């Protein structure tokens, strides 16, 4: 689960990592008040869960109240790379003397935690890594080790912090690690970790986290009161929310063929088969959603799943792909018929069953004599048929 910058800052603040004073605002009136309170110049920053917002015009400097209001009016209605702006963070503008980059993340390959850092910040770390790979340091913290201030000092030196910054950098590294661990984060990134202050006054200089990105481990929600403090109902997809309430994994993909299956891999594979069929047939038909009914799903779960998928007005056909391991195809078949009953009709449904009770499931479907239910033996055939039907319906409408 990704956090907005203003939420990430809260977690840094809780650990005592220095951040500029800032206020979250959601309309131009609040922005004006925030800017007045913080003083000028200040920065107005779009709150979106996507990178490169600066290049998209989502970050503006304001020297006066009027400029702050203008910035708010420009930024608040924006959609950046498909993400609607959720509000703005108004922050004190700082005089930046130097920029560092530091992140801690789960390293899937080495199966521990990765500290990625560069003393040559200022641009995207990926670009620095490409052009000056030697400038980007990659260090590790392991689960069994005790990462203390001594280890943090060694790390700050290894990263190449300027001598004058090493002590404060070590403190920040240690606090970042606590922030990462205590919050069950999968990523804590400070970019830039800036050296700020008056260039002529050594005593005014210090390190400050000007921007931060934090992702949290959804699996650890049970240790953190379900992450309720970071809930974002406004920006949740209504279909995804409804599916989540039923404990189903659903991802809205905005195509025409609804896809339901058991097991994440099989459902992903089914999506690929539908897209492939759309390409083969030259129709551009795409999957409407990912929906995994999980292992051992009951008729009830299948019924609910089909209702959610069919409530998406973009859906023209549904592809149900079940390989029965623990899941019984018989139960799935009953769920399909129950859903159609409740909905008093349905869009065309293409079914492919294999494995546990596949024959019984297919018999139940055949006996229903429902003209909207089509049966295929392989997932490839089923995907082709579902894509063909969706394309025909669309063409009929056009």
């Amino acid at each position, binding site marked *: 689960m*990704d956090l907005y910058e203003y939420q990430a800052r809260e977690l840094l603040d809780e650990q005592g990592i220095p951040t500029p004073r800032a206020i979250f605002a959601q309309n131009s009136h609040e922005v004006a008040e925030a800017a007045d309170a913080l003083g000028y110049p200040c920065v107005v920053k779009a709150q979106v869960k*996507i*990178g490169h917002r600066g290049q998209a015009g989502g970050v503006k400097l304001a020297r006066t109240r009027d400029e702050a209001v203008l910035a708010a009016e420009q930024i608040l209605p924006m959609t950046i790379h498909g993400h609607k702006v959720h509000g703005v963070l108004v922050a004190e503008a700082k005089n930046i003397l130097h920029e560092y980059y530091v992140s801690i993340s*789960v390293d*899937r*390959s080495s*199966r*521990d*935690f990765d500290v990625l850092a560069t003393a040559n910040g200022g641009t995207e770390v*990926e670009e620095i890594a490409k052009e000056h790979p030697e400038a980007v340091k990659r260090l590790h913290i*392991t*689960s*069994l080790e005790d990462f203390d201030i001594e280890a943090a000092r060694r790390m700050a030196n290894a990263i190449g912090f300027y001598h004058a910054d090493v002590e404060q950098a070590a403190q920040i590294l240690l606090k970042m690690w606590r922030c990462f*661990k205590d919050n*069950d984060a*999968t990523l804590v990134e400070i970019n830039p970790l800036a050296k700020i202050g008056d260039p002529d006054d050594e005593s005014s200089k210090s390190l400050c986290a000007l921007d931060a990105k934090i992702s949290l*481990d*959804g*699996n*650890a929600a*049970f*240790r953190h009161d379900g992450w309720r403090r970071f809930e974002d109902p406004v920006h949740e997809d209504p279909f995804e929310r409804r599916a989540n309430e039923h404990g189903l*994994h659903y*991802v809205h*993909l905005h195509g025409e063929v609804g896809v339901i*299956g*058991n*097991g*994440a*891999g*099989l*459902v*992903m*594979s089914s*999506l*690929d*088969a*539908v*897209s*492939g069929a759309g390409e083969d047939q030259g129709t551009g038909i*795409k*999957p409407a959603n*990912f929906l*995994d009914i999980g*292992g051992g799903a009951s008729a009830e779960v299948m019924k609910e799943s089909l209702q959610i998928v069919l409530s998406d007005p973009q859906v023209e056909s549904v592809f149900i792909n079940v*390989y029965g*391991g*623990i899941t019984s195809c018989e139960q799935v078949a009953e769920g399909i018929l129950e859903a159609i009953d409740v909905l008093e009709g349905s869009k065309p449904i293409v079914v492919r069953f*294999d*494995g*546990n009770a596949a024959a019984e499931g297919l018999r139940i479907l055949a006996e229903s004599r429902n003209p909207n239910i089509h049966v295929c033996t*392989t*997932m*490839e055939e089923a995907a082709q048929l579902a894509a063909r039907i969706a394309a025909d319906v669309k063409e009929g409408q056009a």
Partner: protein
Amino acid sequence: MSTFIEDNAPVIVQGMTGHQGMTHTARMLKAGTNIVGGVNPRKAGTAVTFPGARQGADAQIPVYATCADARTATGAKASVVFVPPRFAKDAIVEAIEAGIELIVVITEGIPVADSAYCVELALQHGVRIVGPNCPGLITLPSTPDGHGVNLGIIPDGIVPRGPLGLVSKSGTLTYQLMGELSDIGFTACLGAGGDPIVGTTLQEALKVFEADEDTRAVVMIGEIGGTAEQEAAAWAATHMTKPIVAYIAGFTAPEGKQMGHAGAIVSGGKGTAQDKKEALEAVGIRVGRTPGQAAAFMREILEERHIV
């Protein structure tokens, strides 16, 4: 020769007395797995009856307070973990410290920090973890009168013994490919798991299959997220003498969306199915466009090499 674990190896089940544990212990017993105990401190000293589960006869499975007790009493070599996420770390650590050699973790939803801790501890102790968030491990008996080991939730009876090995990040795609190649047969099928950090990676499974003389070719099923497929490809390029056929799921997955499995996510443009496919093909591993095509590629290779 047996793969991952010897035939008839004694097995305990952690979380046996829960709903999932009961269902699958009965199933594993029916598949011929030598289950010798369960672990639950609150029910220690009791026994659970699984009617008709051992070749038609009732199976009485004793419950022990700890893994250490269970191992002392039974000599268990492997454990299957069905314990809920919030207790899983303690259960796995207990199994590692009790000297269990192979720990198969079925539980979905374990925090990644807990998995990282367990995997590191296991590596330190020379213990193999399979999973978490996986369907388990099934081995087919290496002798006619031996019993294979069914650890987890993989359905029994899909495949006979044969020359193939299989490793997969996905449960149902495992069954799918087992089904497609059921006439050829397998030595072992291992669900590596769909979490970001797992105890046995694709590469580590390849290593076991490469060392196993009865395994002649390997099916590898990957999905979006991370770089386990690329690492497996790089390793295979220089170490693997046996042919591999791969399948990758998730070409249509959008950036930043978790597709069911905690580990199945493309982030920052990394972990795409296309990248994985290219890395595999670059070292000469054929990648099926569908599971069916992957199975067809495997048949071609087996024929070319006169394996079947």
